[in-house]
């Protein structure tokens, strides 16, 4: 039995054609009518999250706009917005200008904007507690604040005494958070649906798989969790969320790079692709209900739950060239399984096994790239403590025209209580190199690689020898 797609009722798999623009995922809902020139009301949000630190946000609101020019502010947009990607569309509306203001309101900035203007200062006498109110004009804010109070000049808090400063208004363009504003020109006045969309950073997703492997029965259960990480600084409330699996190119710098050290291998597929002709360039996954993707949150949504998939453990050793190792090398332990009709979006696959007491324990993990259905997957779990290979180059001789004849011996040791089979691969058979003599029959895996299946008895060892001739 292979892994079959079990999409939890919750999550549907959709397929998007390359380059197709995401469509609005819901019907517009009535929202409170608001005045233009003021902040827009609570939006209906949809998110399209990509693997590589990228999100497309669609923000749909109903705005009551006057005819002619007006300005709309969107203070709730992602702090990690790419303002150059903003697009605002509505019926009978044309965009005159878009601004993204990130001059943040701080006490120092506010004071700088007061040069030439009046402020109120409140001095407090520390001995008596008596407060004195005075009007002052800010003359300069350079390494200190210089004030004109009445007809004399002084520096603010030159005496170090507590002095409150009261400002009349918050200066224009200084904001609590980065704010997008759009100046529009409306043909007619009245409420209408406004569709804002933009790209932003700070959101990404991949998949976290946990496989519980039963070695005695060669069975595995596999759970897949869509994992969304939000470090954008903004919480997205009740968002219709869609995830795109695939590699998307962007020209701007992205915060997260994938430097996974240990990658799973996808070997030749078994050809059981279903709906193969329906495949576009990407898979998309829809979260069925609206979800809140909070700032500083890792959100996981179940999408795959497979019981009783067939999986086999195998031992593998790769010898790259013809040479010796001065210590015995542990062989790798791999887990092989297939996904018959469930494409597996990229993510880390973690394999757990139960110990003698029945507690699950970590065995190993590998990073799996986007894997179409019908693939044979090989996950590296780790190294076998008890199974080792000691390769030795017995001799090198000249052979033919500047070629080599290598005599190799491989000592395989097994300290386990049961016999094992090791897949030993010797690479480096370049230029039509061939086996002249071998103690076990090999199989030519590809032009450059030999494969031996070496049985090693329990608490025992096997020595494999081979003579290989490689022309120059």
């Amino acid at each position, binding site marked *: 039995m292979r892994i079959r797609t079990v999409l939890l009722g919750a999550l549907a798999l959709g397929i998007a054609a390359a380059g197709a623009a995401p469509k609005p995922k819901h019907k517009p809902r009535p929202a409170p009518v608001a005045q233009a020139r003021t902040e827009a009301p609570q939006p209906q949000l949809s998110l399209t999250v990509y693997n590589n630190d990228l999100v497309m946000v669609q923000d749909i609101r109903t705005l009551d706009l006057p005819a002619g020019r007006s300005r709309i502010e969107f203070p709730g947009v992602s702090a990690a917005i790419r303002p150059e990607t903003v697009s605002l569309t509505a019926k009978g509306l044309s965009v005159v200008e878009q601004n993204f203001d990130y001059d943040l309101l701080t006490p120092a900035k506010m004071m*700088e904007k007061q040069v030439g203007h009046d402020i109120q200062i409140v001095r407090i006498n520390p001995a008596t507690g008596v407060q004195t109110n005075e009007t002052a004009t800010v003359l300069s804010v*350079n390494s200190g604040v210089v004030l004109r109070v009445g007809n004399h000049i002084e520096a603010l808090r030159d005496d170090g005494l507590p002095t409150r400063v009261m400002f009349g208004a918050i200066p224009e363009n200084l904001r609590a958070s980065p704010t997008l504003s759009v100046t529009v020109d409306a043909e007619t006045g009245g409420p209408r649906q406004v569709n804002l969309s933009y790209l932003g950073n700070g959101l990404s997703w991949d998949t976290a798989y946990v496989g519980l492997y039963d070695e005695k029965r060669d069975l595995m259960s596999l759970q897949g969790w869509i994992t969304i990480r939000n470090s954008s600084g903004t919480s997205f409330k009740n968002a219709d969320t869609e995830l795109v699996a695939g590699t998307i190119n962007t020209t701007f710098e992205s915060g997260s790079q994938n430097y996974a050290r240990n990658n799973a291998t996808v070997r030749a597929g078994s050809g059981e692709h279903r709906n193969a002709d329906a495949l576009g360039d990407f898979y998309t996954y829809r979260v069925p209900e609206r979800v809140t993707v909070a700032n*500083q949150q890792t959100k996981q949504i179940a999408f795959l739950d497979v019981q009783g998939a067939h999986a086999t453990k195998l031992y593998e050793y790769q010898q790259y060239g013809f040479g010796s190792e001065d210590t015995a090398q542990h062989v790798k332990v791999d887990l092989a399984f297939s996904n018959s009709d469930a494409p597996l979006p990229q993510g880390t696959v973690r394999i757990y096994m139960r110990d003698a007491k029945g507690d699950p324990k970590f*065995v190993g993990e590998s990073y799996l790239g986007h894997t179409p259905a019908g693939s044979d997957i090989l996950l590296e779990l780790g190294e076998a403590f008890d199974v080792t290979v000691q390769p030795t180059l017995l001799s090198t001789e*000249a052979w033919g025209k500047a070629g080599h004849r290598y005599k190799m011996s491989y000592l395989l040791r097994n300290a386990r209580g049961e016999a094992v089979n090791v897949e030993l691969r010797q690479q480096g058979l370049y230029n039509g190199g061939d086996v002249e003599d071998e103690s076990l029959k090999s199989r030519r895996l590809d032009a450059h690689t030999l494969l031996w299946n070496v049985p090693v008895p329990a608490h025992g060892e096997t020595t494999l020898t081979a003579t290989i001739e490689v022309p120059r």
Partner: protein
Amino acid sequence: MRLAATLLLAAALAGSARADDVVSEKPDTVKVALYHQGYVDTQQLMRGEQSAYAFGFVNETRTIALPAGPSLIRFRGVASTMVPETAHLEGLPAGAAERNFDYDLLSPGSLLAHSVGRVVHVVRTDPKTGKESTSEATVRAASGGPVIESARGIEALHCGGPPERLVFDDIPEGLADKPTFSVRVTMPEAGQYALTLSYVAMRMNWSADYVARIDPGGDTLTLSGWITLANFSDIGFADAPTQVIAGSASTTGEDRAPSARGLRIAPQCWPLAVDWAHWPPFPPPPPPAAMDNLVETVIVTASRIPQVGFYSSSPVTAVSMQEFADYKLYSLNWPTTVAANQTKQVRFLDQPAVKFERFYTYRGYPNPAGDDKDAREPATIRYRMENLEKDGLGKPLPAGSMSVVDTDPRGAPIFVGQDRIGDTPEGLPIALETGKAMDVGVQSRLVATRNAEEGGRPSRINSFEVTVRNDRSVPIRFELTQPGDVRVLEEDRRHSLDHGLFAWRFDVPAGSETVMRYSIEFWRSDY
């Protein structure tokens, strides 16, 4: 008064959970297993130099009463270094559909940042009378310190006014005291459920440390092994069944606990002519240094501390070994407390009468260059054991450091060197290089060299004369090696091919020297 305030805060935190939330305050039982990722060095840990990849694995059990229908289970008291993606939950009849790990932590900064646009109270204290007065204001900005708006106008707090503080009515939604793992479930029926939650937690490590104490006869040694556990996270596991896993599990190197520190806001006030302020003026101070750079307090404990340091031979082992997957699982025989910032040692091996061989080596180079090619060099001291039952060993030996302790002429133990071993299953040799010998010198002279041709390619034939001088009062065993890819043409002793090296072995009597001659050929393109 203070107690009341604390209780109120606790109530408010619990209150930030919704009505249908089920809060599990802490696990009923916790087990922890540590994995090996590099060697534990307590001095390095105290300096804050630690592997970012080191991790452990936690199994928790919790008994939770769940209502029928949908609910959200909040798992409080999980390890703060939990990697949420690794969570594996068992015991629910129907699987969970959604789970969240929230790490927007409650801090003075996040409290303020989440209050922008909200009404708060400003409390000022009269410096003369100590009387407090409270007024209402709306927070207008937070990122550079609080800017508030009240009936009197706009004002920046903490920029040189009188003592003043902000008072909030409640904790904004989404802020919690600790990172919280939560799971959304729909139960077919209400009841008590026994759940097990398993996950990877970072910042834990272990390695083995061995002491090889040479017995008085000099032919055998006593090998004792210690498991050194290190917990350099800020969470402790009290009285937890503890295990370590020997072997090398593959990791992507990408697993990290989400960085949960709590927002910090430094006020950005206007400049002052005189620095009266309590805070550093503009520009704001850098964010707090990363935890990794701080020198932290590390506690070192040991179980069964031997009386004379590592020279004891108490035969008690606190550990039993089992097979697990292709690894070895060592379980401490009683629950132990693995405290935060602690290194703990437990004895797991005590093996008397292990046969060993001590010899001296010199690694020859096929094509020596330079002017000092006939200089006398000290030989390298090597110890060799076979991990076999007939030699007194035959046990899996997890990777770690091995110290060799000999006896000085007065009969006192003396440390003579240390080396590292990899994971060593039964049947493999153990080789240690512990240092250079003062009294065993090697002079390798290149006595003849000529160019030749082998298989149509230019080669070179080098002849060596090696003099080994033993100034010790005992005979020694010596081993000379050359790389295994040269050809030996002439030799006055038989060589062997051992671990990819040609090796010549011979004895050198006390206080004398032995001369050995050999010739090798190699392709000039190789050396």
